[in-house]
């Protein structure tokens, strides 16, 4: 109901204009629509769920995640998000927030990591991973991205991510760069961040996880990338696969200094 009213408001704003002023008024209408959305972000519900999941004893080992090391030491949550993906010595891998959470769920709680990775977004333990990621990310709200790059694997993943970003393939010849390598472009009315550099505070890498109003779902970065690849007409990227981590490393390093507004709210 509320959504319909907002859409109507945008449309009315847009239609009231004509000729040259039209585009400008459309942009203004969209900006006002976004402002209205910010008043109530349902992501808060996922944050609450995520915090409870972090503390709850769960899984075959009936343990909480409170000893999970997200890169800043066991149990340290604040500031962890803006330094991910990073290298973890215990797994010998560069990991993003979600793949790291799955590692912790496996080692601390006894869950089957491969089983979780196969689960559809929004379902079962995958829905829990998204809620956990939302809460953890929210604890770094207002902080600036500063991914570590000292480890050779971290450097290597940035390089691999850059290659993935520019890799053109598929029936439509699309790469990430097709839509995200130039400032100020749009698909339909959707602004496209330039992800080859810091696109600005709370934009691009600094905006996910985000609540999507259009389908009423909480979208993690893994889902964001998954759906980008769907629209690129690529085959299916595995959850937590190296290409998704490498893209995170590339975008995250490029976003150095950008302020996180996560969890954001999106159309």
């Amino acid at each position, binding site marked *: 109901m509320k959504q319909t009213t907002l859409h109507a408001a945008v449309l009315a704003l*847009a*239609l009231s204009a004509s000729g040259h002023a*039209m585009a400008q008024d*459309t942009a203004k209408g969209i900006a006002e629509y976004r402002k209205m959305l910010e008043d109530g972000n349902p992501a808060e519900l996922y944050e609450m769920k995520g915090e409870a999941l972090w503390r709850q004893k769960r899984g075959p080992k009936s343990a909480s995640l409170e000893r999970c090391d997200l890169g800043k030491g066991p149990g340290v949550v604040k500031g962890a998000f803006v330094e991910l993906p990073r290298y973890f010595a215990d797994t010998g891998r560069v990991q993003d927030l979600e793949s790291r959470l799955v590692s912790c769920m496996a080692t601390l709680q006894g869950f089957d990591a491969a089983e979780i990775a196969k689960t559809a977004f929004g379902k079962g333990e995958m829905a829990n991973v998204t809620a956990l990621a939302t809460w953890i990310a929210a604890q770094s709200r207002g902080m600036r991205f500063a991914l570590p790059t000292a480890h*050779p694997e971290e*450097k*290597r993943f940035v*390089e*691999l991510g*850059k*290659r*993935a970003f*520019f*890799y*053109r*393939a*598929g*029936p*439509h*010849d*699309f*790469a990430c*760069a*097709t*839509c995200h*390598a*130039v400032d*100020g*472009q*749009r*698909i*339909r*009315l*959707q602004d*496209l961040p330039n992800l*080859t550099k810091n696109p600005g505070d709370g934009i691009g890498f600094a905006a996910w996880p985000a609540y999507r109003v259009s389908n009423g779902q909480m979208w993690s970065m893994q889902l964001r990338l998954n759906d980008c690849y*769907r*629209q690129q*007409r*690529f*085959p*299916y*990227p*595995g959850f937590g*696969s*190296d*290409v*998704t981590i*490498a893209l995170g490393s590339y975008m995250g390093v490029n976003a150095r200094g950008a302020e996180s507004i996560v969890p954001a709210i999106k159309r």
Partner: protein
Amino acid sequence: MQAKPKIVAAAAAVLLAGCASGPSPADLDAQFAAMMKASFRDQGIAKADRLKQDAAQAACSSDKPPAEAQAKRLEAEAMSTIKWPSGGQYFGDFAAGEKLAQSGVGMAWNNKSTAPKDNGGNCYNCHQIDRKELSYGTIGPSLWNYGKLRGVKDLNDPKAAEVIQYTWGRLWNSHAFAACSNMPRFGHQGILDEGQIRNLMSLLLDPRSPVNQ
């Protein structure tokens, strides 16, 4: 005998350089190929073999454009792939073209077939076309008044032939005009069929099309 220490020193230098700069670009290329292979899988109509690049895709996959000579060669190759319309019939129905231009579906893993009849043109995603549609993208140039601005008053006028052929070629294989064009190769890649491209031609060029008012 005397050369030996030099060789050892040279080898040490190579090793040191290797340590300082990490894997070489060639190593990274190989690691990247392995990573892509391991990261993706088939899903519905989107098979993993879509990752395999043709020469044009491979040449346009870095932050630097290909050298001019290579770009020219790729453009000439693309030009030679253009299939001109059978019977010299370039035009169809502009209303059907508008419908196709609006549709962004097709070729993704959640679509049921790769047949052109199930695909949209995605045109408004990147272009302004009919000015009445406010929701348009800006990756490509505005196509509002496309035919009018190019002086097309009569589709049968020989003076219009050049722009008609260019437009068909652009829609069939955009790489013929810019090696790394962002625009999909609708005909060449089998996204749209001749009949659909005819409808888009009418949308863009027919003086009666809403685009040219």
